[in-house]
Structure formats: structure tokens, C-alpha cells
């Protein structure tokens, strides 16, 4: 890995909200322009264990962020009242790849589009959790509902999720059903039973919180939070 990429990776890591546990992270984080191609394993049906909603505090601690799950099992009494949890929905999906607008890793493959425009494909080929806020007037959630209505279930094809914008007020997401149907490899399908429930995963990752000695940092940088 080149020096640039190595330093960039460290920056990326520090900008992701830190876990409160050592469990490996399975969430997918979006940057401006990223396009994720995923096959949902959540169906959207009544008893779907791969789709859920959560409330998550995102707190600034030092130079980084810490997420804390709002859950009956988690003591959040130390979090000041002015911090409001964000309401999110989360799905387990088999993520095929992520298309980036900038090359931040040597392993990403260049893809050339119409008029010579270049993007970069990061192959994932693994299960990830996509968690997104519901959006103003539930506009992000409604797009997922549209896919469900169109297909009759969420797991009927490849879904594209695209992030556009950077800040709290100029970031938007589009969730689109694509015509592609891609089969999840059999060996990966065998891992399905081992995937934790959404709430359990978030509890494992963000289920403990201790107020740091210096307290929470006030100046909230909203970049990369959505």
C-alpha cells in the first residue's frame, strides 16, 4: 500500500465512529459519490430478522466520534440531554462492490464510463450492514419501500445505493432497484445463520458508554455522519 493510501486509511478509520467493542465492524460507510451494489438478504416481510430500526447517538469524543446505541440494555444516562439519537433503519445485505469517484486504494479497479469518465470499483463480496437515517419526511426510507413495492420483496435483485454530497444539509441518498439479479455464492449463503440480529450487532458494537474524562467535544463536525 502506498504512503498516501496508508495515511488516507488511517484518516478514514478515525473518521468512522469508533466502536465501543472489539467486534469486527460490518457496517458500510459511504463517502460523497459512492455507489454500493448490494443484494439484500432482508426480505422486508413481517418476520424479517435482517431488517430493523435503531436509535443511535453519535458523540464527538476528542478528535473522533463514538456511537452509542439507544437501547434498554444500554445505560445512556451520562449522555447530555441535548444530544439526540438519530433514527436509522438497517439491513443486512450481500455487498458486491462499491464504486468510488476517487481512487484511495491501489486494489480498486478503474472503470471507464461514457465520455471517458473514470470511477473505481472496490470489490467487497461479503455481508455488510447498510444503515441509513430515514431522511427528511422519510424520503430515504420511502425509496426502500418503493423497491419493496416494485419487487414484492427486497431480495429480488441488486439494489444500488448512492450517496451525493458531504455535509449534514447537502447530503442525499438514492436507493434504486436495478434490473440485475445476482446470486449470492453458496458458501456465503451458508454463513447466513451466523449473522447476528441487527439490534444485537449494534448492541455488541455500540452498547457500552462511559463519559470520557474530558467530557464530550462541543464543536460538532457533521461531515461523514450521514
Amino acid at each position, binding site marked *: 500500500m502506498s504512503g498516501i493510501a496508508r495515511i488516507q486509511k488511517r484518516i478514514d478509520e478515525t473518521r468512522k465512529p469508533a466502536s465501543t467493542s472489539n467486534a469486527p465492524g460490518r457496517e458500510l460507510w459511504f463517502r460523497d459519490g459512492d*455507489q454500493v*451494489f448490494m443484494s439484500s438478504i432482508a426480505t422486508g416481510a413481517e418476520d424479517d430478522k435482517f431488517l430493523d430500526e435503531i436509535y443511535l447517538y453519535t458523540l464527538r469524543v476528542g478528535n473522533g466520534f463514538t456511537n452509542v446505541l439507544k437501547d434498554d440494555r444500554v445505560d445512556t444516562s451520562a449522555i447530555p440531554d441535548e444530544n439526540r439519537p438519530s433514527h436509522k433503519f438497517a439491513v443486512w445485505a450481500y455487498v458486491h462492490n462499491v464504486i468510488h469517484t476517487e481512487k484511495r486504494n491501489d486494489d480498486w479497479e478503474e472503470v471507464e*464510463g*461514457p465520455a471517458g469518465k473514470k470511477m473505481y*470499483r472496490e470489490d467487497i463480496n461479503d455481508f455488510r450492514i447498510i444503515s441509513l437515517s430515514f431522511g427528511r419526511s422519510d424520503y430515504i426510507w420511502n425509496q426502500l419501500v418503493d423497491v419493496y413495492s416494485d419487487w414484492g420483496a427486497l431480495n429480488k435483485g441488486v439494489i444500488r445505493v*448512492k450517496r451525493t454530497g458531504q455535509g449534514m444539509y447537502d447530503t442525499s441518498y438514492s436507493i434504486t*432497484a436495478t*434490473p440485475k439479479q445476482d446470486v449470492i455464492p453458496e458458501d456465503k449463503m451458508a454463513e447466513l445463520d451466523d449473522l447476528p440480529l441487527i439490534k444485537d450487532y449494534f448492541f455488541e458494537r455500540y452498547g457500552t458508554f462511559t463519559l470520557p474524562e474530558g467530557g464530550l467535544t462541543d464543536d460538532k463536525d457533521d461531515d461523514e455522519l450521514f
Partner: protein
Amino acid sequence: MSVVTNSSFQHDIDSLRSVLEVAPTLVVDVETNGLEPYKSNQICGVGVGEPNHLGLMQYYPFRHHQGENLTFEKLQQLINLLNGSVKTYIGYNIKFDLHFLNNEGLEVLSKKLVDVIVMARLIEHSDIKELGLTPTGKRRVGPEAVQYDIDTKKVLRSNKWNKDFSLAPPDILGEYCKKDVSLTADLYERFTKEVQRTKQQRIFDMQCDLTKVLYKMERRGIPIDVNYAKRSKDSISQRLQEVEQEIFRIADTEFNVSSPAQIGEVFTSLGIESPVKTPKGKDSWSEAALVSINHRLAGLIRQYRTLEKLVSTYIEPYVDTDVMHTSFCNWGTATGRLSSRGPNLQNIPRNHFKLGERDLSEEERANIKGKIAATVSAKGISMNTELSDDVLKTWSFVGDESYDSQDSSQISIRRLFVPRKGYSLVGFDYSQMEVRVFMYHFRNKKIDEILSKDDVDFHSEAAKLAFKVDESSDKFKEYRQAAKAITFGTIYGIGNTKLSQQLNTSPREAGQYKKQYFAAMEGSKDFFDKAVNKVALDGQIRSKYGRLYKIQRDFGYKGVNYLVQGLSADLLSERMLEVDKYLDGKKSNLLLQVHDEIICEIHDSELESVPYKIKELLKNNSLDIPLDVDMEIFQGSWAVKKDLKPLTFDDLIDWD
């Protein structure tokens, strides 16, 4: 027959119910206030009858402008009874009636549909073109059986009720409808016996199923880009004015460009004679005549006529039509091929039209000369005139099959047809189907080898076999053309003289080529001779699918044509039925069938799997003929196509 009244309704519908309880088969015929079930036209009455044409016959009037109508609650009661009791509907051109009845709530797709006009096609001599109820009734039952039609139409015309039957009172139209139902039932009875006697039950059963599939396709229809239709109409109208002005300038007078008589006068005044004469020996100013005249005026008049026809036939009817519902006729041709009306899909131009005149390249000039030669040859005329460049330039408005949506001077009729939201149009085109079916009739080891090759060009293979040449030869292209002309010449039964015109050689040499071809294509001559002899001996010939063609004994070559074209058509129908079964419960639909091509609308969620399965289903067939299918996806409209290949993730990237 009773014309049902509000007071007799309960008794009449009870009688109908009793009849249906015993035998759930019904002959139906509707009377309407027009011919457009998808627009504002509606039924004004429904005629029903037992297939035994002497049994129950009733007419239920609902929307007559005079006399007693039944209430709409009673219409609903009738529809409910039919939905619950009838298993088979019999009718004459039944899809027309069922579209109207479906608008009133009649269930169609769960029923068996028997179209007596389709039976007529199977039974009647191949020379008979008039298959309507009246001419068929007259031929089969006798002139007295159709006298009612002549008499009633006279009454309808004299009262000006003939354009809108709802203007006539129920007692007149009810009686007329009764006779239609009775005659349909009578013909059904006669043709059923004939179908069995001529051993065409299998093909008839298939046609019944096909009728339902075609009904579904018609019902679904294909969306029209109305805005494009309007824009195109305006652009062509403007171009027509320009062309007309130039015509007047050259002729030095204004006249009606659509009038052959006035065109004749103008040419005569310019000292130009037509190279084509009418049967009475007068100058003809037909298409074939105009293309043969080396004068710019002739070229411009031809261009004017073509553009005018383009607007009136393919654009004008669609400027206020959101969805086109063509009518498919599985009785429309003697061979068994489908035809269609409103519009005739076979005639929709594949090429685009360029509004304006431009300089032509050498290649384009050669292509145009080829097109002119084909037009003239098709009319059986030999053309000796060499056209000058300024005449050839008047043809530059005819483009090729490509279409550039960015070029506003291009007009493509196929561009009118667009997919619904969430769907893509996908075409499945049989590759060289007729040639494959032709070869199937004399298949042997050598032919099987050719048929099983991937992406095979049969004409090249035939040229190699017949004329012992290979692709490296300078003359290969010429020999390939000869092989192609002979193959199709055999299928379509052309003689040495016409073949020599196509090959630009003498009839003797054409005959020589043919001899070589038949000698090399082992079995082909035998197949041809057997078919010709069979027709000469029996006056009929049966296809491998069981369809029986009655042909004049002197026209044996038609036997070859009917066997090849007919078998191709029946195979296509067989495969469409399989595709329809497969699509049951899916979001994708069959939409159109034109030539050897099927157009489907594939839902986005099924684009990855359904087209590939359809292709597989189309290649399989009960006769085990190695068929091949090209699959193309139309981009944005029917005008732009590309090969359909499995989607990659890169195809899904949003590049904006």
C-alpha cells in the same frame, strides 16, 4: 330468437342459465356503435346462442338510441352468468367481440376461445381470400343463408344507421344479430366435421390457444410516444410543403400531386412518357413508373407520395393514442402466417427517413440503385434507364435501419413505440428461419452439419457446396448471392427468367446455376419435385405440422412455399404458446409478432433471467429443427437496438 325486454329478462336469462348448465359453450356476437373497443365505442347489444344453431338464441339490447333497452344492472347479471357458467366461447373473428365484452367485465382468459374464421382458413382453398362471415356463409351454406345480411345492411344504410348500429332499434338489429349467431353456429358445426375429416385437429387446437395469446397481446398493446408523433407530423408536413413547392417550380404549374391523372398531364406537357403501361395500354404513373423515369420531377413526386403515406398511415392515427392495440389475424394468410391490422406491423418501415436532401456517397448511390432495381423487379418490369445524380438524390430521404435520436431531421416510425415505465422492449428474431425450415425438409448428415453450426450463414455454405468456391475467391460474393437467390427462389417458386433478372444474367445461365445448386444440396430437388407432384396429383399438400393446403393443381410450386412458410409460421405459433405459458405469473409480456420476430416487454426485475429463458424456449421445438434466435434490447424505443447480453455491474453505474 327473442329480443330480450325488461319484462322477459328473468325468464330469458333463466333459460340461458339452464342451457349453460347442460352445455357451457356459447356462441357470442356483439353489435356496437363503432369499431374501436379501446376508444369510446361500446356494445349496444349482445347476441348469444347455443352452438346447435337451432337452439336458444337471444339478443340483449343495452345502448340503442331507440326502442327498449335493458338496464345496466341486467347487463351485469348477464356478464355474471357468463363468467360463472361458460367454459368455451365461439365467435366469428371472436377477439373483436371479446374486447368489447371484456370492457363490460367479461372474463376471457380463463375460457377456451374458438374462432370460426380460423376454422375457415384451415378448411377453405388457399386461393380464397374473402373469409368474412357473409362470403364464407354464402360459399358454405348458400346465398339464401346470407340474404339477411344484404337486406339488413340496406335498411341500415337507408336510415344512415350503418356507421353506428346503436342508432337502429333493437328489433331490427336483434334479428340481424340472431342470424349472425345462427350462421356462426352453423359454420362451426360444418367446420368441426371438416377439421376432423381433414385430420387438422392438432393444428386447430393450437390455433384456439393462439387466439387467446393474441387476444392478450392485443389487449396489452404497446405504448406510443405521442409527443414524438406530434413532432414528426409537424416536421414531415413542413417537408411536404418544401417538396411540393419544388415540384410546382419544376412543373411550372400547380397541380394535385396526389392525382395520377394530373401527374400524367404534367409529364405529357413536359414531353415525358411513362415506361410502364396500364393493361389498357395507357401511361401508368404508378410507383414502378415513377422510379423508372429519369427526371427529378418523378423522384420528387415519389418522395412526396411516400412521406404523405407515412404521415397518414403511421403517424396521424397515433397523435392522440397512448397505446397501440394492433389486431392480429391468425386467419389472415393462406400459409398460416400471422397478419395484423391497425396498423399492419409487417409494413412498418425498419429504416428511418431523412427530411431534406443531401449529397450521396458512391456506396449510397449503389444502394439506392439496388433498391430501385428491387422495386422495379418486384413489379415484373425490366428497367433500362440509368438515373442521373439529381434524380438519385431525391431518394436520399430514405435512410437505413440505424436511428440517431440526436438528429432531429431523422424520422423513424419505430421510434413511436416505447416501453412502459419499468420495462424494456426486447426482440427475439429467428435467424434465417425459412432457410432452416426449407433445409429441414431434406435434412441429411451434410445439412445437419450446416444447421448445427454457430452463427452460420446458410447462403455462404450453400455457395461453397454448390459452386465449389470458398470465401477467398474474388467471386465468392457473387456466388453467395446466386445461392441465396436460388434458395429463396425455390421457396417462393420463381422461374429462370425472374432468377436471371435478380442475378443479372441470362435465363439459361440462371438455369445452370440452379442445376448445380440442386445437385449439391442433396435432396433439395427431390423435395421440390415431390411437393410439385403431390399438388399436381391431389390438389392439396399437408405440412409436417398437419396443416392441409388446398392448391390449384397447376401451381405446384406454391406447395413448396406453403410447406416452408406455413411450417415456419406454425412453429412460431407453437413457440409463442410456450413463451406465454412461461410468462404466466410474471410481470413480462408478449407484445408483438412481426415477420419472424417476437417483441416482448420485459420487466426490469426480470431482465436478468426471463429473456434468456424465452430465447431457449423459442429455440426448442416439437420438430427438433435446429433454430437460432437473435436477442436484442431496444433502447428507449423500437428504433434503436443492441444485442442483449447479461448485465454487468458496470452497466448499472450511475455516471452522472
